[in-house]
């Protein structure tokens, strides 16, 4: 019989299609794994309501488990509690940074509706905090665009949520 730990390990091989250095486990979107005999029941939660990667992620999880020889698989989605960047693993944050994306700051500090708020985001290339927000919205729903004032590189910031 397969253990839940085995399934969690396999899920680490399933990558986010839009940020391929992160596994779905790093991202914190796998909320529950239940195994009973040969049945595997996995609950995931979306990062953003309209995230187009969610359908692909559900399919990738299913394909990975099929590849490992499992046949009786259920992948369901749950909205509550709502996903937060605080669920991202430390390993995931390090991988993001190495990939050139600034990892999210802790949510308590910056997630609010204050206008023109300045958030200290570290440049993933040179480590400088002398950075500037270009846009709160980026190439995917989960990212904002920044530019470094020292090395001048533009970079993505995985914004707190």
């Amino acid at each position, binding site marked *: 019989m397969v253990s839940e730990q085995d399934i969690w390990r396999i899920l680490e091989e399933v990558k986010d299609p839009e940020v391929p250095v992160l596994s779905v486990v790093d991202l914190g979107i796998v909320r529950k794994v239940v195994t009973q005999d040969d049945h595997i029941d996995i609950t995931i939660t979306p990062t953003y*309501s309209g995230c*187009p990667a969610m359908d692909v992620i559900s399919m990738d999880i299913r394909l990975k488990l099929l590849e490992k020889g499992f046949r009786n698989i259920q992948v369901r989605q749950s*909205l*509550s509690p*709502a996903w937060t960047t605080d669920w991202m693993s430390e390993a995931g944050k390090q991988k993001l940074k190495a990939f050139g994306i600034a990892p999210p700051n802790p949510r308590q500090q910056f997630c609010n*509706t204050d*206008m023109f708020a300045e958030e200290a985001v570290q440049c993933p290339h040179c480590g400088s905090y002398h950075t500037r927000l270009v*846009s709160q919205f980026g190439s995917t*729903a989960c990212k904002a665009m920044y530019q470094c004032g020292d090395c001048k590189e533009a970079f993505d910031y995985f914004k707190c949520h």
Partner: protein
Amino acid sequence: MNTQLFTYTLHLADNAVILGQRNSEWTGHGPVLEQDIAITNIALDLIGQARNLYQHAASLYNNFNQEEKDAVDFLIPRPWKSFGRELQEDDLAFLRDERQYLNILINELPKGDWAVTVLRQFFFSAFQYFQYSELQQSRDPQLAAIAEKSLKEVAYHLRWSGEWIIRLGDGTAESHRRIAEALEELWMFAGELFLPAPYEKKVTSAGFGADVSSYKDAWTEKVERVFGDARLAVPNKTWAQSGGKEGRHTEHLGYLLAEMQYLQRTYPNATW
């Protein structure tokens, strides 16, 4: 109560999908690339919220008894009745007629210039922010979950649109003129936000919906604060256009639906 909750859920979904569709018209046409991407992201968030709400409405309907189904029949898309399968989210979005749509009028108005787009977004995001905050306590657990999820996205929309009001209002003579004109055009549509439809009153008194009167002051205060920084005065006119929540729309909605629904109307059940 079930049928009122279904109607209310459709109303929330329609608000989101119609503004999502309008905002998506900016895709590829934004004033600068970063803002094109921003308004497109907001459109995507709204369409995502609409999907969750339509899925919930469809599931409520599929579990109705015959009497309940009959009571909401006027809202059900006719083409679906020949499909011989359960109601799905896409049927609700792509096959209902104009009079079956329950969105507020302000969301269906043409996108206008950038000032009109950001001002409408600001009015609606501020409204959604308080509405979803309250809906987190809904007695319907799925509606509460959708609200909890959506609220985090709306916080970003509110901040973004509020900043644009100030940037335009306190910017150049030209930008101030544009936002002042947008306000003149849109203000008479803002009042509908706080005129509850009969189904809205019923779900609210039963603990399922959000009571608009409980956050009207908070909304007004938010608008006044941002307008103060933007050197704009809150108009003192109180007369409001209304009817959208009950399916009586402006001439603009039909054109929007014709474009949005074209594919599913022409090729029913098409997938790709």
